[in-house]
């Protein structure tokens, strides 16, 4: 029978996230994977700016805060200096898909041997719910109060599809965290990405679809249904690139 114990890679206290925030779940899944691989003393968490920076308070291990969007650049430096360590960045969509777009694309194109965990909640959570590059068409935010209009603001950015077109990345996948199946798959995907990194295969990218109950203006349970009907049809979960399978 399965049993579950809180991972030791997390501090024995609550996270700084709002009630029902799936960012906290993403952090916990990463901690679970690191515990299962027994890498607590070996992992380095490169934390970006935004809600994902709250990781710094709950992470029980080595971590470093990078400038806004520059986490892949910092991780590149750390991994090149300390090639034996397990290095990963944990970034939100405002950080990775907007200000840090150049860094992530360059790091992915160079095939740097670290893992990027991308938590996509389709809004700028920490600054008050402004429109992010990943905000869905018609989704309301504080800067698009009538819903996002593609005529003036363009279309939501699909990072997994973009990165999967590059030659160097070895594993690119997207998971939705609103159902137990999605969470279970995400846990396996994160573990696989870390294993590929430890084997020295190259760049791995995991996108986690999350929610933002506070800025979407819904209860936590309503956000799960909203993700089912709106987010998942646009950002389709799945494995976009896996060089081991494709050969």
């Amino acid at each position, binding site marked *: *029978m*399965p*049993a*579950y*114990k*809180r*991972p030791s890679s*997390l501090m024995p*206290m*609550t*996270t700084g*996230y*709002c*009630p*029902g*925030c*799936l*960012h*906290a*779940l993403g952090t*916990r899944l990463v*901690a679970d994977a690191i515990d299962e691989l027994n890498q607590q003393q070996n992992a380095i968490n490169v934390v970006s700016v935004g809600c994902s920076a709250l990781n710094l308070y709950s992470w029980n291990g080595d971590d470093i805060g990078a400038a806004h969007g520059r986490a892949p650049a910092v991780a590149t430096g750390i991994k090149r200096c300390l090639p034996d360590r397990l290095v990963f960045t944990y970034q939100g969509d405002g950080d990775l898909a907007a200000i840090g777009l150049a860094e992530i694309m360059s790091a992915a194109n160079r095939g740097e041997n670290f893992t990027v965990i991308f938590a996509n909640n389709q809004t700028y959570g920490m600054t008050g719910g402004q429109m992010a590059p990943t905000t869905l068409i018609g989704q309301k935010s504080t800067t698009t109060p009538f819903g996002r209009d593609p005529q003036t603001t363009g279309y939501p950015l699909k990072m997994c599809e973009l990165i999967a077109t590059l030659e160097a990345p070895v594993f690119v996948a997207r998971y939705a965290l609103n*159902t*137990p199946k999605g*969470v*279970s798959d995400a*846990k396996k995907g994160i573990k696989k990405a870390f294993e590929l990194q430890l084997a020295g295969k190259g760049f791995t990218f995991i996108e986690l679809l999350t929610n933002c109950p506070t800025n979407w203006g819904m209860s*936590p*349970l309503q956000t*799960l249904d909203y993700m089912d009907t709106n987010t998942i049809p646009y950002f389709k979960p799945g494995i976009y690139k896996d060089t081991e399978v494709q050969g």
Partner: protein
Amino acid sequence: MITINELMCKGCGYCVKYCPKHILEMGKERSQRGHFYPVNIDAEKCTSCAICALMCPEGAIEVAAKER
């Protein structure tokens, strides 16, 4: 058998929604932090599947393996 750490719980209700045996329920009392937290209303039916722990964002639920 599950253990819910009420001081870590923020009352999102994901565990109540996804419990396959429907034996979790939001309690009527608030924790010290001010959140309602789930209670196990029928511990005997628990199969230790750990789906509640899997869905808990805060890691507030720990599950012991079921004795056979």
